[in-house]
């Protein structure tokens, strides 16, 4: 386990050092993160000019949702997205050898390959929004909510990561799949609002087909005290299942790629 | 006297390059005050090309060849001086001018990537306002000359580099340009393909009396096609004339090949006459300064029982290299 952490840390550090060369990117990225936040908050403000509650969610609760949306989006864009894109490019160009010839688990290496450090601006902004929301929610958020939030967030991260890995693994067989990741990006936009307000077909899609709900709404629910234990159990179960399934699928794909018979 | 097809007078292209050190402090400083220096990519070139001539541009990387070609085709705006092609100022990019020239850059695509070349050709036909008959005639000729038969029906991305280059050239010539600018057209191609393209350019020039300006790294291109060479170095014209004259002027050495009968003396003795390039049983190759060539030849003939003796110019590549390694004068 320590080995895994050490490898992950090394790669992330290298990625960060690489990006630090381009300091201007920090300001540009921060600016873009602000723009994204403007859209979320602006939309929120306009909505609450006309109503006091959206599908049962209060303004402060929705603010927390926006914060979680920013944070999770930032997490995805710092590591998961760039690494998976890089992996698919490596498969297409045939330059995946580094992962196969190093004495470490290929899945780990591939998953932390690229680290866009300037995207942490997204995460910091999300945290700032979250803090404001927490202040406004006041005593409603205690240790129980915080731990539910943390747990749900971990599950969400695991689910999103596994989902991306499964999509990316398809590139072992289909060469032009880069666009498939665009599906997630488009659907993630829906995470700005609580998934409960969407019609059923969309809700199911956003929960089980493209796991936006588990990434954003469920952790936010945990934070503001709307998460019940059955739902949390569902999240935990799905996270564990997807981690296993994606791992299995990955090993299958890797064996096919390196020519071993399955 | 006929108007030259291409006319350059003291043409110059100067780039201002901004310097900036690394670091955030320097970046902020550079917002207020920028250090810069000028790069003279082309520094006062003048020459004329008559209609129907093929001229070769020689020069190392960064000499200014491609920059000159881009100014001649209108892609770059000159900093100073005159440039005139077919009576037009290229950088004005007038339609009539563009319809009469073509620029082919090696490894750069103008054909659309995902569809067969013939579809891009058809698009060009319409853009250059060619009648169906003109187009078909020219296409048939180009297909025959370049051996393109099935290639033009395959998507361009499925072609090899050589096949793609042939299609690019065909596409560039469909409208029968009167002036053809070729920038490294054979780069990256195998020897057979290079030869085929060389033959084609020569044929095109003969048939349509097109003016051709060609830059190349490969001496073989220039030797095969160009009677006249222009040598550019550091943005300046070093030489403008026939290829033989170039060798004559810049070759500093001559090569003497001596054939010897059996029972030859050892090579160390030959070192007295000149630099020994090669020594084989029965033959010695020497390099001597041009001025000494006659005297050394006389000495060799007098001192040694020689079977045969030849005096050669050094290979052209060597001559060119000598030209380029000359300091700025």
């Amino acid at each position: 386990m320590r080995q895994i952490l050490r490898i992950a840390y090394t790669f992330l550090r290298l990625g960060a050092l690489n990006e630090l060369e381009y300091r201007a990117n920090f300001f540009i990225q921060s600016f873009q993160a602000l723009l994204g936040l403007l859209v979320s908050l602006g939309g929120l403000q306009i909505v609450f000019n006309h109503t006091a509650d959206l599908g049962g969610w209060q303004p402060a609760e929705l603010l927390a949702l926006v914060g979680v949306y920013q944070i999770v989006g930032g997490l995805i864009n710092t590591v998961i997205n760039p690494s998976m894109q890089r992996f698919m490019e490596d498969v297409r160009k045939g330059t995946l050898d580094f992962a196969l010839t190093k004495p470490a688990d290929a899945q780990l290496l591939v998953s932390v390959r690229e680290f866009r450090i300037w995207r942490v601006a997204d995460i910091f902004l999300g945290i700032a929004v979250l803090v404001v929301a927490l202040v406004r929610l006041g005593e409603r958020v205690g240790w129980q909510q915080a731990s539910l939030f943390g747990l749900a967030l971990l599950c969400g991260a695991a689910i999103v990561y596994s989902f991306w890995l499964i999509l990316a693994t398809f590139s072992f067989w289909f060469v032009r799949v880069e666009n498939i990741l665009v599906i997630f990006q488009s659907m993630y936009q829906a995470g700005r609002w609580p998934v409960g307000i969407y019609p059923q077909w969309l809700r199911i899609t956003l929960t089980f087909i493209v796991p936006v709900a588990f990434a954003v709404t469920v952790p936010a629910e945990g934070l503001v005290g709307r998460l019940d234990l059955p739902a949390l159990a569902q999240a935990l179960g799905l996270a564990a299942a997807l981690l296993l399934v994606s791992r299995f699928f990955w090993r299958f794909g890797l064996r096919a790629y390196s020519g071993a018979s399955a | 006297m006929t108007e030259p097809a291409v006319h350059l007078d003291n043409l110059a292209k100067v780039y201002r390059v901004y310097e900036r050190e690394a670091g955030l402090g320097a970046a902020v400083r550079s917002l207020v005050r920028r250090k810069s220096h000028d790069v003279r990519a082309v520094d006062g070139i003048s020459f004329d090309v008559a209609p129907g001539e093929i001229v070769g541009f020689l020069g190392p990387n960064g000499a200014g060849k491609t920059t000159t070609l881009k100014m001649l085709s209108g892609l770059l705006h000159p900093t100073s001086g005159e440039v005139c092609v077919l009576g037009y100022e290229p950088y004005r990019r007038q339609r009539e001018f563009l319809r009469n020239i073509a620029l082919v850059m090696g490894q750069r695509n103008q054909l659309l990537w995902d569809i067969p070349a013939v579809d891009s050709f058809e698009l060009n036909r319409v853009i250059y306002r060619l009648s169906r008959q003109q187009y078909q005639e020219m296409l048939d000729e180009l297909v025959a000359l370049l051996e393109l038969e099935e290639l033009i029906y395959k998507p361009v991305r499925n072609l090899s580099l050589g096949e793609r280059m042939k299609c690019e050239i065909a596409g560039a010539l469909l409208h029968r340009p009167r002036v053809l600018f070729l920038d490294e057209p054979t780069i990256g191609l195998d020897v057979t393909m290079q030869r085929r393209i060389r033959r084609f350019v020569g044929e095109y020039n003969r048939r349509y009396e097109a003016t051709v300006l060609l830059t190349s790294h490969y001496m073989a291109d220039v030797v095969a096609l160009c009677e006249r060479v222009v040598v550019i170095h550091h943005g300046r014209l070093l030489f403008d004339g026939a290829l033989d004259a170039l060798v004559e002027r810049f070759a500093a050495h001559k090569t003497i090949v001596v054939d010897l009968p059996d029972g030859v003396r050892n090579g160390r003795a030959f070192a007295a006459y000149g630099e020994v390039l090669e020594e084989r049983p029965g033959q010695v190759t020497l390099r001597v300064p041009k001025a000494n060539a006659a005297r050394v030849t006389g000495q060799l003939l007098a001192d040694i029982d020689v079977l045969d003796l030849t005096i050669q110019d050094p290979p052209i590549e060597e001559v060119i290299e000598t030209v380029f390694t000359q300091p700025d004068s």
Partner: protein
Amino acid sequence: MRAIYQAFYRTSLAVQMQYRVAAIIWLLGTVLQPVIFLVVWSTVARAEGGSVGGYTVAGFAAYYITMMVVDHLTFDWHMWEYDYRVREGLLSPLLLKPVHPIHGDIADNLAYKSLTMLVVIPAAILLTLFFRPSFEAPLWAVLAFVPAIILAFLLRFLSAWTLAMASFWTTRIQALNQTFFVAELFFAGQIAPLDLLPAPLQLVANLLPFRWGLAYPVELFLGRLTPREAITGLAAQLIWLAITLVILRLVWRAGLRRYSAFGA
């Protein structure tokens, strides 16, 4: 010129067909975004007694479904294309041709949208069946919609094309483009119908060109404009079109000079 457009159109169609899978994936986002706002505002309307700011639930459905189609018909992507062209040196071959590159770009639009309409229209129909919008526009409004949407396309295309010229000066166009898109989101009536914006933002929206490219044709089609407002809108479209054309020519010439100064 017509022959040239036909040739460009045919060629572009052939090229776009090669990328149809990617196109369909991108269309997912096109369809989803209006649906998200549709649902959000419908929820608000229901909570507030059935309507908000003059829009009922059915009204919001009509607005956003129309918005989806109009947005797709009038948008342009060439600001990304020019960044690519300048970076990869693909602009020089275009400049050597005796035809202005803008014509090929317009033909690209026509070709792309001919193909994608095959997906967008059925999607609109499906959404209509599910969300039950109410369309009640007088005939003159529907007829006036035709010139309005053509002008809207020209306005949005030329603005986007002018923005694309930024590629001549910098490779960092993402922040610039995003600013443009965010402004469009708010002031073209995408995040919310313009009537629902707070008064100061509505004022800004009237001063900017965005509403004439999107919100105006949509409102016209839905019959939400008086004849007087329709004519004023048409005039506004024409004025902004003229302004954009002037700016475009200036920027194109400056951009070309810069490109030919710094290396083609």
